[in-house]
């Protein structure tokens, strides 16, 4: 039996290599294999023969791996081999188109900066158009990478064209608050527009939506890393050039905007092709920060509730809390997308629930304060946008908390929770679009 054990171990290692198959699956398959071997042994076959027959019955590993991959497409995301089955992964290729799109975005941003004479002048058209200078290139990059069909070009380009028309044809008033809101919300709208080419047009697929969430989280991590590295590089360059009399300000003016724009495309390329690197890092980061945020949120919820500070939210604090709630939502969403759905509830799910419930409590308090302000002072563009955002968040968090609690008590499946979140994504997109398109005319572009 000694040799069969080593054969099984070898087989096990071989199966574990297959894309789409994880450790638990291998355990299950090995259990099956051992049964089969034992039964064949009992029927009179030698150990070697029994092993060979059992492996043969298990089926072709490529087919099996593809079947597993199809079922667990979330895992397969790691290997990027599902498309077309035999098509080789195009991991290393594509750097040329990446550079072309990145340089294009960098140049456009630079031209816009020169036209606006930033930073000496700060015309408001620059801020509200900024995402329109960069994100179309990201959409174009994905349209090319996914090789979209011609009929898919229109839905890819339409949001950008419409956005460009809306933000530039609206007759903005001077020092317009709605204009500032547009500058803040348009990037969100356009990011969702990038989802269309990213998902190859299959926007109804919940699995692909989850992929996009995962992409967003990993893109963010890569972008922050690039920004950190770029910051160090620029700092050192400035220090080295200082004795030569070059103004460090000048470097920042020229390099920073273009670098930030190009990095948007480069980060997307890194997520697509250097998947494994960030994949090892991202779950660790979520695991590290989810508990910390949960503690912080729970603490804040208790303190604000006990001291009654909740009623005294002022404008600054409201903004901070909105940002905080969005970060929590991002963490929860990303944590979910990086999770293996077949695992049963563990301590991380409990901590996430603590974070979500605390965020919910805080959101209710924020909402209360906000409604009180609106009752006292009436609607303004800022208050309306903040109120809408908080209602959208409140519904999402309430649904997530309810489903997470049911999941933890074994009365519902994680799948339901994922569905809730992926089905909710368009609500965020629609709200952001409403702030860009509907809110300004409502408040007479003030």
């Amino acid at each position: 039996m000694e040799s069969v054990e080593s054969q099984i171990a070898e087989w096990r290692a071989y199966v574990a290599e297959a894309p789409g198959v994880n450790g638990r699956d291998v355990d299950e398959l090995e259990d099956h294999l051992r049964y089969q071997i034992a039964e064949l042994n009992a029927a009179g076959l030698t150990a070697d023969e029994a092993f060979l027959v059992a492996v043969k019955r298990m089926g072709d590993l490529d087919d099996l791996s593809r079947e597993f991959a199809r079922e667990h497409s979330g895992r397969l995301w790691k290997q990027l081999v599902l498309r077309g089955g035999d098509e080789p992964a195009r991991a290393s290729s594509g750097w040329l188109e990446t550079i072309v799109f990145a340089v294009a975005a960098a140049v456009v941003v630079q031209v816009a900066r020169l036209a606006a004479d930033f930073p000496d002048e700060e015309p408001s058209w620059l801020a509200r158009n900024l995402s329109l200078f960069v994100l179309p290139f990201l959409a174009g990059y994905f349209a090319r990478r996914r090789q979209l069909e011609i009929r898919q070009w229109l839905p890819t380009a339409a949001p950008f064209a419409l956005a460009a028309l809306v933000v530039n044809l609206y007759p903005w008033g001077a020092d317009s608050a709605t204009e500032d809101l547009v500058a803040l919300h348009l990037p969100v709208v356009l990011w969702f527009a990038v989802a269309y080419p990213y998902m190859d047009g299959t926007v109804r697929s919940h699995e692909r939506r989850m992929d996009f969430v995962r992409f967003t989280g990993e893109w963010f991590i890569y972008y922050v890393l690039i920004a950190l590295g770029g910051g160090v590089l620029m700092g050192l360059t400035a220090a080295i050039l200082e004795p030569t009399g070059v103004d460090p300000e000048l470097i920042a003016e020229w390099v920073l905007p273009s670098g930030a724009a190009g990095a948007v495309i480069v980060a997307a390329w890194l997520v697509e092709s250097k998947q494994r690197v960030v994949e090892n890092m991202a779950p660790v980061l979520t695991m590290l920060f989810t508990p910390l945020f949960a503690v912080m949120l729970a603490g804040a919820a208790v303190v604000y509730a006990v001291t009654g500070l909740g009623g005294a939210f002022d404008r600054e604090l409201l903004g901070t809390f909105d940002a905080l709630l969005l970060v929590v939502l991002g963490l929860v969403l990303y944590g979910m997308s990086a999770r293996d759905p077949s695992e049963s509830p563990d301590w991380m799910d409990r901590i996430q629930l603590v974070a979500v419930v605390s965020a919910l409590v805080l959101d209710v308090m924020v909402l209360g304060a906000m409604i009180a302000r609106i009752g006292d002072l009436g609607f303004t563009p800022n208050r309306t946008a903040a109120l809408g955002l908080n209602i959208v968040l409140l519904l999402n968090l309430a649904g997530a908390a309810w489903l997470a609690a049911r999941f933890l008590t074994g009365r519902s499946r994680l799948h339901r929770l994922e569905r809730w979140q992926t089905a909710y994504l368009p609500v965020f997109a629609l709200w952001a679009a409403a702030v860009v398109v509907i809110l300004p005319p409502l408040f007479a572009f003030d």
Partner: protein
Amino acid sequence: MHIDKDLVAASATPLVLAILAEGESYGYAILKRVRALSGGELEWTDGMLYPLLHRLDRLGYVTTEWRTPREGRRRKYYVITHRGRAALADQQRQWVTITRALNDVWPGSDVLLTALGEA
């Protein structure tokens, strides 16, 4: 007798659900039951059962649990859920309809419906 691949695939879900409706089970036992039920005529590739079981799990038709029996290795058990039973009932209706239709165009053979116990 060779059974067409598509037919094997189409019958896999109702078969597995029906076996689990008899009581909780694990992969190897399910496969043995399939062989016994079909008199060895239904040839499944063993490995393919598992992606199927995982899909049923994702759809909420079954729940799973890893357990270690006293004498043996850790093993994953599958238990049919309420939704799984509903899906099974739905599948049964579909198969009865198909069987009845086939029965009607194959004159002189009541074999199918008798086998289904649904004449």
